[in-house]
């Protein structure tokens, strides 16, 4: 538990600045919504959405690694937590989103606007 906490304060502040910056960028993009990012499509959704998702994952990385101190844990504790969660979440999300798309394609033609 006593590992390397001499430099951890500096790292904490750097991570705070990073998280704040990322959130600011996200909110700014969300308000401006540049048409070339918002109205175009790449890999099933707009580039803007991909930017949001990637930035979110970057934030998640910083919170888990720096704040929750995952970087200081033993390799296999880290893997048993991260791999399990990442695999199951990807699996669940993939199946449900495919199902959601199918429901849309089946039900939407029946809705009269």
């Amino acid at each position, binding site marked *: *538990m*006593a590992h390397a*906490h001499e430099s*951890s*304060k500096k790292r*904490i*502040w750097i*991570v*705070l600045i990073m*998280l*704040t910056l990322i*959130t*600011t960028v*996200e*909110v700014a993009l*969300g*308000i401006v919504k540049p048409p070339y990012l*918002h*109205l175009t499509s790449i890999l099933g*959704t707009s580039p803007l*959405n991909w930017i*949001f*998702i990637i*930035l*979110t994952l970057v*934030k*998640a990385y910083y*919170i*888990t690694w*720096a*704040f*929750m*101190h995952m970087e200081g*844990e*033993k390799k*296999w*504790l880290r893997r*048993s*937590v991260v791999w*399990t*969660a990442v695999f*199951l*979440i990807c699996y*669940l*999300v993939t199946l*449900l*989103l495919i*199902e*959601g*798309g199918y*429901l*849309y394609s089946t*039900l*939407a033609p029946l809705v*009269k*606007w």
Partner: protein
Amino acid sequence: MEVNIAIPSDSKETWNGGGVKPFGASYGKMMMWFFIVSDALTFSGFLAAYGLTRFKFIDSWPIADEVFTHFPGLHGVHAPMYYVALMTFILIVSSVTMVLAVDAGHEMKQKKVAWYMFATIIFGIIFVGSQAWEWKNFISGSYGSVKTADGKILQFVKEGHQIALSDFVVNKRTDERVQHTKYNGLWFEKEETISTYSIAQIKEAYQSNSEIQIRSELIDLETKQKVILSREEGLAQLSKTKLVVEGANLEVNEYGNTIFADFFFFITGFHGFHVFSGIIINIIVFFNVIIGTYERRGHYEMVEKVGLYWHFVDLVWVFVFTFFYLV
């Protein structure tokens, strides 16, 4: 080599696995991690269900920055997202004070740990309070809309911007309909709150003001904006009105799909409940720090464990923020 089996020990050791440290972490800390994994799966189940439903109604889902537009002190100003951004920042700051508490715990500085825990609790309370305010705005609504017999929400716009019912319907409710309460009616029967205006009155106001248009739930996939109906189409839709909707509950809301509000209440509510329990646990640990429990124990690992939970709550919010407000 450490062997990961439980070793019989006296009862004092029961809660830390007999001193065995699988993965080099104490038993309690490892179990906190595994609890977090399972809780993360619960939240991702909710968010994935939200994703499924949104994909199912991809052509009519409410647009978040048209729903969450309030900021404290700014009345009538269209301020999408600023408030949630502020909430996110507050939660991140509370995470930082938490991690500073853990850090001070490593250095065995009791006073510092107590102060940082205190700050964390305060920021947590501010966050939950902000969420309550957000709920209040969501529930009371700001524009009002009508719902047609075939279940569609119609909103009113003027020059492309959404306007409230009170902006174009003049006078008070004209059909003299009064709220049924137990004092003026049957004491054993209740009535849902009646709307500010009657359906006929809204229709009349729409017809008499040619600047007002109706916005449907349908999204134009080219512009990603809600479709605004022509005056004639709007009147045709408006004639099918069966309900005036102001605000939101679990059955109907002025923003669009019913299930949108349901997910909002459920997911942010479940997260808010996590924050609330986090605050309670933080308070317990805070008092333990003050009375010197961990000083006597010789380490501040409890602060570290509750810290893990607190950071996890922050982590979940980062995802809720993205998928509810941004994407």
